């Protein structure tokens, strides 16, 4: 997989402990592509190279996050800074962030609070990010992330201008220590019976439940050794068995919307 842990930054558990309860209590925004409790809040925004901290009372409650950002990273290259919270099965549908050959941004994830059921995926790999680890995510590959635990997973997410080499995103090389061995999740292969059960959903699929069906299929890869993009192919197979031709068309639209036209 292209996602990789670039190293670990030093985080103060005492200072984080002051701000995390505030993050958990915030009324955050939901995302159109998210399922369940998957919410976010912008802390920095603006047009590059003028992105700057948002001057509002919410961001001002997070002086330590500001410090983590400015102490470790080249803030002049930042496009946005956000916190993403997920819990209780909240996740984002498998997607690609851009479809062309040119990167739209360079995204780093830094978990501030996590648990063993906070998982991310790229293609057919599933992995876990530890607190303080700085992860580069390749938005050109199908990827997905979620938290299947009651306790919220909170990530600080920084988007940088796309043309800056990864090593130059840090204020200096002393900011980051060596990357640990990544925690990948081994899963059993998908069996023929399981595939049959998935395709069998044609017996109940309708226009009304096509979207909830995709929401279910999008999670199968966290338990079985398949790529997250399979969800869309399964949905197309299922919809193709429906007497309603609009369903197949909608399933194809969903695949194109999330993975880009022509993705196979």
């Amino acid at each position, binding site marked *: 997989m292209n996602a990789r842990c670039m190293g670990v930054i030093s985080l103060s558990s005492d200072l984080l402990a002051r701000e995390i309860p505030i993050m958990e209590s915030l*009324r955050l925004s*939901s995302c159109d592509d998210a*399922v*369940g*409790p998957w919410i976010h809040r912008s802390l920095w925004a603006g047009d590059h190279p003028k992105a700057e901290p948002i001057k509002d009372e919410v961001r001002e409650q997070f002086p330590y996050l500001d410090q983590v950002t400015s102490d470790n990273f080249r803030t002049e290259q930042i496009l946005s800074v956000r916190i993403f919270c997920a819990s*209780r*099965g*909240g996740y984002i549908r498998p997607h690609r962030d851009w479809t062309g050959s040119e990167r739209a941004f360079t995204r780093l994830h830094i978990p501030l609070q996590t648990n063993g*059921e906070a998982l991310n995926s790229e293609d057919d790999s599933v992995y876990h990010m530890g607190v303080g680890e700085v992860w580069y995510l390749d938005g050109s590959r199908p990827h997905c992330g979620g938290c*299947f635990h009651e306790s919220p997973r909170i990530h600080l997410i920084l988007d940088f201008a796309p043309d800056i080499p990864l090593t130059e995103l840090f204020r200096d090389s002393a900011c980051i220590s060596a990357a640990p061995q990544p925690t990948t999740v081994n899963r059993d292969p998908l*069996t023929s*019976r*399981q595939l*049959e*059960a*998935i395709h*069998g*959903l*044609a*017996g*109940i699929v*309708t*226009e*009304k*439940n096509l*979207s*909830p*069906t995709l*929401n*279910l299929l999008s*999670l*199968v890869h*966290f*338990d*079985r050794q398949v790529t997250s993009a399979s969800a869309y192919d399964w949905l197309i197979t299922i919809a193709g068995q429906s007497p309603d031709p609009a369903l197949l068309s909608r399933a194809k639209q969903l695949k194109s919307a999330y993975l880009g036209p022509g993705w196979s």
Partner: protein
Amino acid sequence: MNDGGVICTSGTQLVGRLSIDPQRLAPEIKATESFPMDPSVGYGVGSWCKCLVWASKMGPLDTAKSGLAASLPMLMAAIHETFRVEAINHLQIFSIKGRGFILPHRDWVPARPLHTRLHIPLQTNEQCLHAEEASVFHMSEGEAWVVDASLTHSAANFSEANRIHVVVDFDPEVPVHELFRVPGNCESAPFESIDRPKPTSDSLDAIYGLAEIASARNFQRIADMLATVHYDRQVNCAAMYDWLSEIAHRSDEAKLVDLAAVLQRRYLGPFDF
């Protein structure tokens, strides 16, 4: 409630109409978009959310003075004209901004009703449906429906357009016709459930086949998907909890059996209140 395609004469009923001009109400419907909505995560799927506009503890329901109610002057005036506002406990906005639904649930048990609940659609369309036990029906704009929330019920918006209801909770001790300022305006009317085909053996095979892929990570999403089946098939909306239990047992995962029981208890009771 009876089977689909027949007249339903108990539980939820259409009891009257609110005199509101949808066009003149448009600015107030727009105003609700900026209300601080509670997504009620865990119960709703998609954009289902709600907002408390007024509660009796806030003082008299005065449209002009304060709070969110002040931004709904025409609606408040229509409610004042139609109902005995002194019997109102709460007034909420329930919104589904585009596609979304709420899982089949009960809000209280028959022996201890918390409110008499009226739904009045302000903005809706034919793809916005309600279910109560085995019945599925549509509430039109301006209609006032008593919803028996002690029965298992659910609601959905299967369109891209917004669905907005004002939900008025009254003192449950007051008879329904006495909720109206003019009791004669209460027109208790039965309604016809939308007819749907019965589930086939293929559909049940598809549902129980989910035991093959069920896990703790996707069990809630299985519940979400099953929560839509009754809108297409002639089954009680509560059947999804039996299906979940069967799926869990067939999966041989004790954790899923527990999860199925937890979900059923959370949505159908018994409740602690």
